[in-house]
């Protein structure tokens, strides 16, 4: 199972490009799509699940051309959009059954068995009769995952699945993903939460302003930022000046000022202690190195 993306561009209107000349090969396993808001992650995913037509370029999924074989491709993919919600008047099991019907599962017995199995695996069996409107955010997200899995998809596209989830739900979700990735399927996970990727993905791409700026494993990304992350101490009055000079990842108040974690090629003006980078550091370093403006707000969002 492989997805090949060649020179894919998506243009809205006359000039606004959401994606520019994307080239990617995605193989079985968990693939992370990282990038700030508006980078084009959702557009790319919607193209992959046949909801949007590409403007230029070519995409093949398992050798099938995305433009020509929508019918077959739709049988292969499962999609969980960012803000998944369901028909509020439908019970949890009914919604899944509807999805099963639309996927062509005709035998009622097989359908119901599948529904129950999936509900158990996502931990919703106890609430199977509850109306969707009465589910918590995490439960809804799990229901969303369950409906994507109903047709045994070979490509699973999941858009920002952990946004707004509490840590426990987020962990549970990551585990679910990890379980799935053991099967021979492609899971494409788009996120701007670096933690989602570092814990699960074997391969990833970094998308910025509609372009792929990095494609490789998370380790490669981390390796690229080795010796670029520093630990420094600063007095109260220095904080503002330092924040203007370096991208500050964290500032922890200490006895006589702050303990800061910053990314920089080198630090000459004060003592600095290099620390081993993690994926978040690497992401920020990388984004900064390509000239992406990392304000405190965007960093905040990345947490």
């Amino acid at each position, binding site marked *: 199972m492989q997805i090949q993306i060649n020179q894919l561009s998506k243009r809205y209107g006359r000039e606004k490009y959401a994606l520019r000349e994307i080239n990617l090969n995605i193989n079985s396993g968990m693939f992370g799509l990282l990038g700030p808001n508006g980078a084009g992650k959702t557009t790319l995913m919607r193209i992959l699940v046949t909801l949007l037509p590409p403007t230029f370029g070519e995409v093949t999924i398992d050798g099938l051309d995305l433009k020509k074989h929508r019918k077959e491709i*739709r049988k292969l993919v499962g*999609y*969980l959009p960012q803000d998944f919600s369901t*028909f509020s008047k*439908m019970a949890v099991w009914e919604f899944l059954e509807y999805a099963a019907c639309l996927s062509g599962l*005709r035998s009622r017995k097989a359908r119901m068995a599948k529904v129950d199995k999936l509900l158990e695996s996502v931990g919703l069996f106890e609430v199977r009769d509850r109306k969707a409107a009465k589910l918590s955010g995490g439960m809804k997200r799990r229901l969303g995952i369950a409906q*994507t899995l109903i047709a045994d998809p070979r490509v699973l596209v999941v858009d920002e699945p952990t946004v707004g989830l509490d840590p426990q739900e987020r962990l549970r979700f990551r585990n679910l993903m990890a379980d799935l990735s053991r099967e021979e399927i492609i899971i494409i996970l788009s996120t701007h939460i670096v933690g989602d990727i570092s814990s699960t993905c074997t391969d990833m791409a970094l998308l910025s302003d509609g372009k792929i700026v990095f494609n490789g494993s998370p380790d490669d990304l981390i390796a690229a930022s080795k010796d670029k992350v520093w630990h420094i101490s600063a007095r109260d009055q220095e904080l503002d000046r330092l924040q203007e000079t370096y991208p500050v990842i964290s500032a922890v108040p200490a006895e006589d000022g702050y303990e800061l974690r910053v990314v920089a090629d080198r630090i000459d003006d004060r003592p600095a202690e290099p620390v081993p980078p993690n994926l978040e550091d690497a992401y920020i370093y990388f984004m900064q190195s390509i000239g992406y403006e990392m304000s405190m707000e965007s960093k905040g969002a990345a947490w």
Partner: protein
Amino acid sequence: MNTLYTIWSVARFETKLLLRSWAFRIFSALGVFVLVMMDIGLGLKTGWSPHFLNSLSGSLPLFNIKILNIYQGIIAAFLATEFIKRDRKHDTTQVMFVRSFSNTSYLLGKLCGILAVFTILNVVVLAVAVPFHIFGPTPFALTPYFVYSFWISLPTLIFMVGMSVMLVTLIRNQAVVFVIMLGYSLLVLIFLGQHLFHVFDSFAFYQPLVMSDFTGLANPEDVYRLRGAYFLWGLGLIAVAALLTPRLRQSRIANIVTAFVGVVCLCSATVLGYDYLQGKFADREYRHQLRNTAQAMTEIPVPTVTQYRLLLDHQGEKLDMGAELTVVNNSPVVLDSLLFTLNPGLITEKISANREELSFTRTDQLLWIRPNTALSPGDSLSLSLDYAGRIDDRYCYLDIDDKRYESLYRIWLYSFPKQYSLVTPDFVHLTAEAGWYPIPGLPPGAAFPAPIKRNFADYQLSVDVPPGMIAVSQGRSTIDHATGSAVYTFNSEQPLAQMSLTIGRYEQRQIEVDSVSYRLCLFPGHDYFADFLDEVGDTLPSMIRELKNDYEVGLGLQYPHARFALVELPIQLYSYQRLWTVAQETVQPEIVFMPEMGTILAGGDFRRMKRRANRRQERANQEGNPAEIQAEYFSTFAKVDILGMENSRRGIRRFAGVETRYEVLPNLVSYMTNVSSVQCPVLNYAFEAYFQDRVSPPGNTRSRRWRGMTDEEKANLALQKKSLAGIITDPNAVAIARPTLQAKGRHLLSLLEAKIGRELFSGAIADFLIANHYRNISDRDFGDFVAAFDSTDFSAVVDTWYRDTALAGFLIKDVESYKVQDGERTRTQLKFTLTNPTGVDGVVELGLRYRRNRMGGFSRGFFRQTSNDYTELLWIPAHSAMDFGVVLDDDPSEMTIDTYVSRNIPSIITVQFREQTIRRNERPYVSREIIADRDDQLVAGEYLVDNEDQAFDVGMKAKENWLRRTLLGWFGSADSTDPYVGMRFWNPPGNWVATTGPEFYGKFIHSGMFKEAGDGRSIVAWNVKLEEPGEYDIYYYESGIQMPRWGRHRGGGQYSKGEKTFLVHHEDGIEEITVDLDGVEEGWNYLGTFRLAAGENTVEMTDANTESFVIADAIKWVRR
């Protein structure tokens, strides 16, 4: 198969979602609730509904489906757009949209879901209706439930869903689309649906769809085509929506298939719609063609047929006929070619005379037969014709203009199809109008306004009738059962003007009274009145005898046949009123037809009559004899519908716009003789109308205040502008032509009657009619008849009557009624002076009602009686007056003076009398003396300005509310274009408009102006030019009309006149006077005394009032 499975799945879940949606639940619950309530009213035997609402087995389902159809159409539009909106929440449906199915199957699934829930709703509504239906007064049948659901509900639903889904995929905004759909629905229901043969009527709101219980849909082809078109349009639009759906197409093939299906549906729909419309236009064109074909032949001399022998073989929808005719040349010229008319659908196969075949030509309905030797005057010939084919219904009523012909035959929500003849395997109805046998020359419709001649002939008809059916026609019948079917042979016993044939599965009852055989032929299960007449059985013969005698005495003529049949016809058989005769095709010699289940009979609502009787009894706290009450129903029915002796009883409902009548009169007049006048083609109508008037009282004048002018008054206004000749030939005056003719008709002979004396004239004219049985009366015959009594040149009278516009006008004065000592007895004196100040001789009918008949007395008090106890015609020459005095044995409570055709509005002057007191000094006074015209002049120093005068000024006009006027126009309540409108308490007009009534001041026209009460800014003014300065008493005329109090005052049944605010301009300025009218008497009332200068003076009145409207009438100045 995958596609079907997807459609099924989507439909299944869509149904679940809709059934759970509050919008649908609330809407349906509301709809079901309202309809159930209405069903209770309609369906219960004791319900409030009038008979026409539940007469046919399809009435109740049709009512439910029509209401539901509009309701669900709009709701479906809402729900259909709702799911698109729901689907537009991308994240909900995108998880669905990435699954493998085509857009078309998805949308079709949605459509099926919507259809499913509305099917459930339909089933619920109809299932609720069924028990009411089964146990209600209406005959029950299941077919209409299916037929109406299928042809009304389904196409509308699919069309509305298709259109709204298509729009929402284009516009992508549910609110906007819903508003568009709502606007579209309103436009169709209020305006578009009525026009262009209902081709835009997507709700089937106007399209004639009412089924007969026995012949089903009358116009199935129209229904299939138009409803089919909407069904296919709906599907086509859904296909378009599928192509436009904002989801990427599944596959090219799916799209191609969808586009193909869409195009096929839309094209087929368009073809069906076009075919329907084209058919209608072609029908219209064809009728024009037939009319033109005939019109070129109006002057051709034609033969007379003295004997018909007709042999009819009924084969499904076809006729195979043989006709033997004895033809005589009664014209003054030699005929080498004989003109006949025959329905153009009947193909002439062979014509022979004395076993020799004759040559003939056919042009549409015209048949030219060329005898081997030309027919000299007086010669006769026996013709034998073979012809066969289908009756072409378009041939009927060629004289009826397109607008009238194409107008809806509609009562409330029910649109009935119009048919004029019917030949189906199970039913046959043929009248002369259908041209089913050859008639010499042209039918009257084609000839008018050329003089109309009736062909009186002996008829014999033989017809093979299948088992279980019976045939009804004229003459003595013999039935031969030798073969499997029955062969009916009818032989006329006297010459007939025309012959009809009706064959159907009738159940018949027969009774013989005084050697007339009465027969009632009804469709099985249609004796709806039986329950209401169960007590009258034994007394039926005497009731019939009494009714017949009353009628014959009133008319001065005897029913001339030995048979009388009342025969039910399918509801769609319609007939029009004509201008040359009162006869309609629904009445044939010896037969009066009645509409299916008495649906449109004015006096056939026995249930309503019973309810009224019960209520009356309850109120009067008395027990009536059921047989006596039932006799009243029967008598009302007979008098209103069959005899035409009553037309204004309470509880009688005449359906506006429905022309068909079922009155027997033509059997005694129209089919017995005919005035064929060259001078005036409508003289026959005048002749017949005179007889009609003898038995039928004038129309109800009580409601004129609400309805505006009566038809007679509208006719009078029209006649002041245009002569009768002008009106009857004016295509724009069709609506007024018949009432004008009716009024003028009774006026003409009443002129003679008043001059000659009622008794003498009425006997003589009846004798004249009888002497002319079975022949046409010429102008000369008529002139001779009149000359025997009166020296006036009747021809000149007719000419003036037909061509002049001058009308007489009458003023009544000095009306007095009191008790007077006449010898030993105390009697009642009535006196008045009636002036005719115009230059035209006039006639009026005086009518009196006696007080003793107003109170108590079961049979009279039971229904409000409208006919007069005493009538007398008074003839008043031009520029003169009648000094009238009469001494009566009874106290009159009301006097009416019907001014016939005159300038008077109201045309009937009404005077009410209070209790008469005795005047000891007066002597009985009897007079009919014609005296000099005493038209009152105002005495010196008196000035009067009425609202009819030039000096009356309607000042500031309120702003015209365009929207209000348009909307009111749609709902049929717009301010009328008539110069005088009816007064309505609800929603009075925003501007000053004129109305008439006896309450108002006036010379010939008693009128006033009224408008809704305002803020006092709209002002009317009476301007006067005073010759001398001085002190003047000013009076205003008060009509005394009270207004019911609405709103917070409601419930108390309170009435008030409110107040009037006058502004009197006088030497020292303006004085505002507000008068509380509740203490004010009707008539002239004193306003005040003012010092006024010579020259222009004004009294103004504002529109301010505490009640709903204000009335302005007249002001009088009297110098002290």
